[in-house]
Protein backbone atom coordinates (compact mmCIF):
# COMPACT_ATOMS: atom_id res chain seq x y z
CA UNK A 1 0.00 0.00 0.00
CA UNK A 2 1.37 3.36 -1.00
CA UNK A 3 1.43 6.36 1.17
CA UNK A 4 -0.84 9.17 -0.12
CA UNK A 5 2.06 11.65 0.04
CA UNK A 6 4.14 9.42 -2.24
CA UNK A 7 1.23 9.01 -4.61
CA UNK A 8 0.77 12.76 -4.83
CA UNK A 9 4.48 13.33 -5.47
CA UNK A 10 4.58 10.65 -8.19
CA UNK A 11 1.58 12.25 -9.87
CA UNK A 12 3.37 15.60 -9.74
CA UNK A 13 6.52 14.08 -11.23
CA UNK A 14 4.47 12.44 -13.98
CA UNK A 15 3.11 15.87 -14.80
CA UNK A 16 6.66 17.14 -14.99
CA UNK A 17 7.67 14.32 -17.32
CA UNK A 18 4.77 14.95 -19.70
CA UNK A 19 5.28 18.72 -19.61
CA UNK A 20 8.99 18.35 -20.23
CA UNK A 21 8.60 16.15 -23.29
CA UNK A 22 5.83 18.21 -24.85
CA UNK A 23 7.69 21.47 -24.27
CA UNK A 24 11.02 20.03 -25.38
CA UNK A 25 9.61 18.77 -28.67
CA UNK A 26 7.90 22.08 -29.37
CA UNK A 27 11.07 24.00 -28.46
CA UNK A 28 13.29 21.94 -30.74
CA UNK A 29 10.74 22.21 -33.55
CA UNK A 30 10.53 25.98 -33.15
CA UNK A 31 14.31 26.31 -33.04
CA UNK A 32 14.64 24.24 -36.21
CA UNK A 33 11.96 26.38 -37.84
CA UNK A 34 13.98 29.43 -36.83
CA UNK A 35 16.93 28.45 -38.95
CA UNK A 36 14.76 27.17 -41.80
CA UNK A 37 12.29 30.03 -42.39
CA UNK A 38 13.46 32.70 -44.77
CA UNK A 39 11.63 35.68 -43.30
CA UNK A 40 13.18 37.38 -40.30
CA UNK A 41 9.79 38.09 -38.69
CA UNK A 42 8.83 34.42 -38.61
CA UNK A 43 12.21 33.79 -37.08
CA UNK A 44 11.45 36.28 -34.30
CA UNK A 45 8.06 34.71 -33.57
CA UNK A 46 9.60 31.24 -33.35
CA UNK A 47 12.33 32.59 -31.08
CA UNK A 48 9.59 34.00 -28.82
CA UNK A 49 8.08 30.51 -28.65
CA UNK A 50 11.42 29.01 -27.64
CA UNK A 51 12.00 31.70 -25.01
CA UNK A 52 8.56 31.26 -23.44
CA UNK A 53 9.07 27.50 -23.30
CA UNK A 54 12.41 28.03 -21.61
CA UNK A 55 10.70 30.31 -19.08
CA UNK A 56 8.26 27.50 -18.30
CA UNK A 57 11.19 25.12 -17.90
CA UNK A 58 12.93 27.50 -15.49
CA UNK A 59 9.75 27.57 -13.43
CA UNK A 60 9.61 23.76 -13.49
CA UNK A 61 13.16 23.59 -12.20
CA UNK A 62 12.59 25.75 -9.17
CA UNK A 63 13.75 29.08 -10.61
CA UNK A 64 10.59 31.21 -10.51
CA UNK A 65 12.50 34.50 -10.40
CA UNK A 66 14.49 33.67 -13.52
CA UNK A 67 11.33 32.48 -15.25
CA UNK A 68 9.81 35.92 -14.79
CA UNK A 69 13.04 37.66 -15.76
CA UNK A 70 13.12 35.52 -18.89
CA UNK A 71 9.63 36.59 -19.88
CA UNK A 72 10.16 40.27 -19.05
CA UNK A 73 13.71 40.77 -20.29
CA UNK A 74 13.93 38.35 -23.20
CA UNK A 75 10.45 37.97 -24.58
CA UNK A 76 9.42 41.47 -23.54
CA UNK A 77 12.43 43.67 -24.13
CA UNK A 78 14.97 41.90 -26.32
CA UNK A 79 12.51 40.51 -28.84
CA UNK A 80 10.67 43.82 -29.07
CA UNK A 81 14.02 45.46 -29.76
CA UNK A 82 14.59 42.93 -32.53
CA UNK A 83 11.19 43.73 -34.01
CA UNK A 84 11.84 47.49 -33.84
CA UNK A 85 15.15 47.08 -35.65
CA UNK A 86 13.41 44.87 -38.18
CA UNK A 87 11.01 47.73 -38.83
CA UNK A 88 13.94 50.11 -39.38
CA UNK A 89 15.92 47.73 -41.56
CA UNK A 90 12.85 46.59 -43.47
CA UNK A 91 10.83 43.43 -43.34
CA UNK A 92 11.88 42.79 -46.93
CA UNK A 93 15.04 41.39 -45.47
CA UNK A 94 14.35 37.84 -46.51
CA UNK A 95 17.49 35.79 -46.70
CA UNK A 96 19.01 35.08 -50.06
CA UNK A 97 19.36 31.42 -50.94
CA UNK A 98 22.62 31.94 -52.80
CA UNK A 99 25.57 30.42 -51.02
CA UNK A 100 28.47 32.86 -51.03
CA UNK A 101 30.93 30.21 -49.90
CA UNK A 102 30.51 26.97 -51.81
CA UNK A 103 29.36 24.03 -49.72
CA UNK A 104 28.98 26.22 -46.66
CA UNK A 105 25.59 24.86 -45.67
CA UNK A 106 26.72 21.26 -46.02
CA UNK A 107 29.80 21.82 -43.89
CA UNK A 108 27.87 23.85 -41.34
CA UNK A 109 25.32 21.05 -41.03
CA UNK A 110 28.05 18.44 -40.68
CA UNK A 111 29.83 20.53 -38.04
CA UNK A 112 26.54 20.95 -36.20
CA UNK A 113 25.86 17.23 -36.23
CA UNK A 114 29.39 16.52 -35.04
CA UNK A 115 29.06 19.04 -32.21
CA UNK A 116 25.68 17.59 -31.26
CA UNK A 117 27.06 14.05 -31.15
CA UNK A 118 29.99 15.26 -29.05
CA UNK A 119 27.79 17.12 -26.57
CA UNK A 120 25.26 14.29 -26.27
CA UNK A 121 28.10 11.82 -25.68
CA UNK A 122 29.51 14.10 -22.99
CA UNK A 123 26.12 14.42 -21.30
CA UNK A 124 25.54 10.69 -21.62
CA UNK A 125 28.90 9.73 -20.16
CA UNK A 126 28.86 12.23 -17.34
CA UNK A 127 27.32 10.97 -14.14
CA UNK A 128 24.54 13.47 -13.74
CA UNK A 129 22.59 12.14 -10.82
CA UNK A 130 19.15 12.98 -9.62
CA UNK A 131 18.37 16.51 -8.58
CA UNK A 132 18.98 17.51 -5.02
CA UNK A 133 15.78 17.63 -2.96
CA UNK A 134 14.20 20.98 -3.64
CA UNK A 135 14.19 23.08 -0.53
CA UNK A 136 12.71 26.43 0.24
CA UNK A 137 15.27 28.19 -1.94
CA UNK A 138 13.65 26.68 -5.04
CA UNK A 139 10.24 27.89 -3.98
CA UNK A 140 9.07 30.70 -1.77
CA UNK A 141 12.58 31.74 -0.69
CA UNK A 142 13.98 31.87 -4.23
CA UNK A 143 14.16 35.64 -4.54
CA UNK A 144 15.60 36.06 -1.03
CA UNK A 145 18.25 33.41 -1.72
CA UNK A 146 19.25 35.02 -5.02
CA UNK A 147 19.36 38.46 -3.42
CA UNK A 148 21.59 37.18 -0.64
CA UNK A 149 24.02 35.68 -3.15
CA UNK A 150 24.01 38.69 -5.48
CA UNK A 151 24.69 41.15 -2.69
CA UNK A 152 27.28 39.10 -0.81
CA UNK A 153 29.29 36.59 -2.86
CA UNK A 154 28.67 38.12 -6.26
CA UNK A 155 28.59 41.78 -5.27
CA UNK A 156 31.65 42.72 -7.35
CA UNK A 157 30.39 41.14 -10.62
CA UNK A 158 27.05 42.76 -9.91
CA UNK A 159 28.65 46.21 -9.68
CA UNK A 160 30.68 45.55 -12.83
CA UNK A 161 27.40 44.66 -14.52
CA UNK A 162 26.10 48.16 -13.81
CA UNK A 163 29.16 49.65 -15.51
CA UNK A 164 28.55 47.33 -18.47
CA UNK A 165 24.93 48.39 -18.77
CA UNK A 166 25.81 52.11 -18.66
CA UNK A 167 28.51 51.59 -21.27
CA UNK A 168 26.12 49.64 -23.48
CA UNK A 169 23.43 52.33 -23.23
CA UNK A 170 25.95 55.08 -24.06
CA UNK A 171 27.41 53.04 -26.91
CA UNK A 172 23.99 52.40 -28.40
CA UNK A 173 23.15 56.11 -28.20
CA UNK A 174 26.43 57.08 -29.87
CA UNK A 175 26.05 54.47 -32.60
CA UNK A 176 22.42 55.23 -33.34
CA UNK A 177 22.92 58.99 -33.31
CA UNK A 178 22.90 60.70 -36.67
CA UNK A 179 24.42 64.11 -37.25
CA UNK A 180 22.10 66.39 -39.18
CA UNK A 181 24.05 67.76 -42.12
CA UNK A 182 21.34 70.03 -43.52
CA UNK A 183 19.14 72.43 -41.54
CA UNK A 184 15.84 71.07 -40.39
CA UNK A 185 13.08 72.08 -42.85
CA UNK A 186 10.59 74.50 -41.36
CA UNK A 187 6.83 74.37 -41.77
CA UNK A 188 7.04 77.15 -44.37
CA UNK A 189 9.65 75.31 -46.43
CA UNK A 190 7.61 72.12 -46.30
CA UNK A 191 4.43 73.81 -47.52
CA UNK A 192 6.30 75.65 -50.29
CA UNK A 193 7.87 72.39 -51.42
CA UNK A 194 4.51 70.73 -51.45
CA UNK A 195 2.84 73.34 -53.61
CA UNK A 196 5.84 73.41 -55.95
CA UNK A 197 5.71 69.62 -56.34
CA UNK A 198 2.55 69.90 -58.43
CA UNK A 199 0.41 67.76 -56.12
CA UNK A 200 -0.78 69.82 -53.19
CA UNK A 201 -3.46 67.32 -52.20
CA UNK A 202 -2.77 64.12 -50.31
CA UNK A 203 -2.36 60.88 -52.26
CA UNK A 204 -5.53 58.84 -52.78
CA UNK A 205 -6.15 56.16 -50.21
CA UNK A 206 -6.18 52.50 -51.22
CA UNK A 207 -9.45 50.89 -52.10
CA UNK A 208 -11.41 54.00 -52.93
CA UNK A 209 -14.41 52.97 -55.09
CA UNK A 210 -12.91 49.48 -55.33
CA UNK A 211 -14.37 46.24 -54.01
CA UNK A 212 -12.77 46.45 -50.59
CA UNK A 213 -10.33 48.73 -48.86
CA UNK A 214 -7.35 46.48 -48.19
CA UNK A 215 -3.98 48.22 -48.44
CA UNK A 216 -3.01 46.28 -51.55
CA UNK A 217 -6.17 47.29 -53.44
CA UNK A 218 -5.57 50.25 -55.73
CA UNK A 219 -8.14 53.01 -55.78
CA UNK A 220 -10.24 53.46 -58.90
CA UNK A 221 -10.23 56.73 -60.76
CA UNK A 222 -13.52 58.11 -62.16
CA UNK A 223 -12.81 56.52 -65.55
CA UNK A 224 -12.36 53.07 -64.00
CA UNK A 225 -8.58 52.87 -64.28
CA UNK A 226 -6.43 52.06 -61.30
CA UNK A 227 -4.46 54.70 -59.45
CA UNK A 228 -0.95 53.43 -58.79
CA UNK A 229 -0.36 56.28 -56.37
CA UNK A 230 -2.87 54.85 -53.93
CA UNK A 231 -0.81 51.74 -53.14
CA UNK A 232 2.31 52.07 -51.03
CA UNK A 233 5.54 51.34 -52.86
CA UNK A 234 6.63 49.25 -49.90
CA UNK A 235 4.18 46.55 -50.98
CA UNK A 236 5.80 46.18 -54.36
CA UNK A 237 9.24 46.10 -52.75
CA UNK A 238 8.02 43.41 -50.37
CA UNK A 239 6.81 41.29 -53.26
CA UNK A 240 3.09 41.50 -52.54
CA UNK A 241 1.04 41.07 -55.67
CA UNK A 242 -1.13 44.13 -56.09
CA UNK A 243 -4.54 42.69 -56.84
CA UNK A 244 -6.49 43.99 -59.77
CA UNK A 245 -9.26 46.19 -58.45
CA UNK A 246 -12.80 45.55 -59.52
CA UNK A 247 -15.35 48.32 -59.33
CA UNK A 248 -17.63 48.12 -56.34
CA UNK A 249 -20.74 48.56 -58.44
CA UNK A 250 -20.28 46.42 -61.51
CA UNK A 251 -23.06 47.77 -63.62
CA UNK A 252 -22.11 51.39 -63.60
CA UNK A 253 -18.53 51.11 -64.80
CA UNK A 254 -18.71 48.00 -66.94
CA UNK A 255 -22.01 48.28 -68.77
CA UNK A 256 -21.49 45.09 -70.80
CA UNK A 257 -21.53 43.03 -67.60
CA UNK A 258 -25.13 41.99 -67.13
CA UNK A 259 -26.20 42.02 -63.53
CA UNK A 260 -28.97 39.50 -63.28
CA UNK A 261 -29.28 39.82 -59.53
CA UNK A 262 -31.03 43.14 -59.85
CA UNK A 263 -34.00 41.75 -61.70
Amino acid at each position, binding site marked *: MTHPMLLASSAASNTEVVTFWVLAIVAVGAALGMILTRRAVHCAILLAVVMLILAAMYAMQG*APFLAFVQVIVYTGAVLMLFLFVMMIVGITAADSIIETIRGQRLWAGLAGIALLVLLILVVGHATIGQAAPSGLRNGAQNVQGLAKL*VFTTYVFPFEVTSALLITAALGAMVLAHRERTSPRPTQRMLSRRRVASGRPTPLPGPGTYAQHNAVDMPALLPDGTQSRLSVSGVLAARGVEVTAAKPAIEGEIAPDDESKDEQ
Partner: protein
Amino acid sequence: MISPANYVALAAILFVIGGVGVLVRRNAIVVFMCVELMLNAVNLAFIAFARLHGNLNGQVIAFFVMVVAAAEVVVGLAILTSIFRARRSASVDDANLLKY
Protein backbone atom coordinates in the same frame (compact mmCIF):
# COMPACT_ATOMS: atom_id res chain seq x y z
CA MET B 1 11.03 13.09 -11.88
CA ILE B 2 12.87 14.34 -14.93
CA SER B 3 16.61 14.04 -14.47
CA PRO B 4 18.69 17.21 -14.95
CA ALA B 5 20.53 15.28 -17.67
CA ASN B 6 17.45 15.62 -19.88
CA TYR B 7 17.48 19.38 -19.48
CA VAL B 8 21.20 19.49 -20.24
CA ALA B 9 20.65 17.37 -23.36
CA LEU B 10 17.86 19.71 -24.49
CA ALA B 11 20.18 22.66 -23.87
CA ALA B 12 22.85 20.98 -26.01
CA ILE B 13 20.38 20.45 -28.86
CA LEU B 14 19.19 24.06 -28.77
CA PHE B 15 22.80 25.29 -28.59
CA VAL B 16 23.75 23.29 -31.67
CA ILE B 17 20.71 24.51 -33.60
CA GLY B 18 21.63 28.08 -32.73
CA GLY B 19 25.22 27.51 -33.79
CA VAL B 20 24.19 26.05 -37.14
CA GLY B 21 21.90 29.04 -37.62
CA VAL B 22 24.80 31.44 -37.02
CA LEU B 23 26.87 29.61 -39.62
CA VAL B 24 24.13 29.22 -42.23
CA ARG B 25 22.05 32.39 -42.21
CA ARG B 26 23.12 35.54 -44.02
CA ASN B 27 20.75 38.09 -42.52
CA ALA B 28 22.50 39.82 -39.62
CA ILE B 29 19.32 40.10 -37.53
CA VAL B 30 18.68 36.38 -37.84
CA VAL B 31 22.30 35.68 -36.94
CA PHE B 32 21.78 37.76 -33.78
CA MET B 33 18.64 35.85 -32.94
CA CYS B 34 20.50 32.56 -33.28
CA VAL B 35 23.16 33.90 -30.89
CA GLU B 36 20.34 34.67 -28.45
CA LEU B 37 19.11 31.10 -28.83
CA MET B 38 22.58 29.81 -27.93
CA LEU B 39 22.71 32.06 -24.84
CA ASN B 40 19.28 30.83 -23.76
CA ALA B 41 20.34 27.21 -24.16
CA VAL B 42 23.36 27.82 -21.94
CA ASN B 43 21.08 29.43 -19.34
CA LEU B 44 18.92 26.32 -19.34
CA ALA B 45 22.01 24.20 -18.64
CA PHE B 46 23.06 26.55 -15.82
CA ILE B 47 19.68 26.30 -14.16
CA ALA B 48 19.61 22.52 -14.54
CA PHE B 49 22.99 22.32 -12.81
CA ALA B 50 21.82 24.69 -10.09
CA ARG B 51 18.98 22.31 -9.39
CA LEU B 52 21.32 19.32 -9.54
CA HIS B 53 23.57 20.79 -6.87
CA GLY B 54 20.71 22.15 -4.82
CA ASN B 55 22.12 25.68 -4.52
CA LEU B 56 21.51 28.95 -6.27
CA ASN B 57 24.95 29.71 -7.76
CA GLY B 58 23.93 28.50 -11.21
CA GLN B 59 20.83 30.67 -11.13
CA VAL B 60 22.95 33.73 -10.28
CA ILE B 61 25.26 32.97 -13.22
CA ALA B 62 22.24 32.60 -15.51
CA PHE B 63 21.03 35.98 -14.26
CA PHE B 64 24.38 37.56 -15.17
CA VAL B 65 24.27 35.89 -18.58
CA MET B 66 20.87 37.49 -19.17
CA VAL B 67 22.21 40.94 -18.25
CA VAL B 68 25.24 40.61 -20.50
CA ALA B 69 23.05 39.29 -23.33
CA ALA B 70 20.75 42.29 -23.02
CA ALA B 71 23.72 44.67 -23.24
CA GLU B 72 25.10 42.73 -26.20
CA VAL B 73 21.79 42.91 -28.06
CA VAL B 74 21.54 46.68 -27.55
CA VAL B 75 25.02 47.39 -28.89
CA GLY B 76 24.76 44.80 -31.65
CA LEU B 77 21.48 46.13 -32.97
CA ALA B 78 22.81 49.69 -32.83
CA ILE B 79 25.81 48.62 -34.94
CA LEU B 80 23.42 46.86 -37.30
CA THR B 81 21.26 49.93 -37.82
CA SER B 82 24.29 52.12 -38.44
CA ILE B 83 25.65 49.61 -40.97
CA PHE B 84 22.24 49.48 -42.61
CA ARG B 85 22.15 53.26 -42.77
CA ALA B 86 25.51 53.36 -44.52
CA ARG B 87 25.17 50.36 -46.83
CA ARG B 88 21.38 49.83 -47.18
CA SER B 89 21.74 46.14 -46.48
CA ALA B 90 21.42 43.85 -43.47
CA SER B 91 23.32 40.98 -45.03
CA VAL B 92 26.52 39.89 -43.37
CA ASP B 93 28.11 39.44 -46.79
CA ASP B 94 27.82 43.10 -47.69
CA ALA B 95 29.78 44.46 -44.74
CA ASN B 96 33.17 43.77 -46.31
CA LEU B 97 34.83 47.19 -46.41
CA LEU B 98 37.88 45.95 -44.53
CA LYS B 99 38.39 43.01 -46.88
CA TYR B 100 40.28 44.62 -49.75
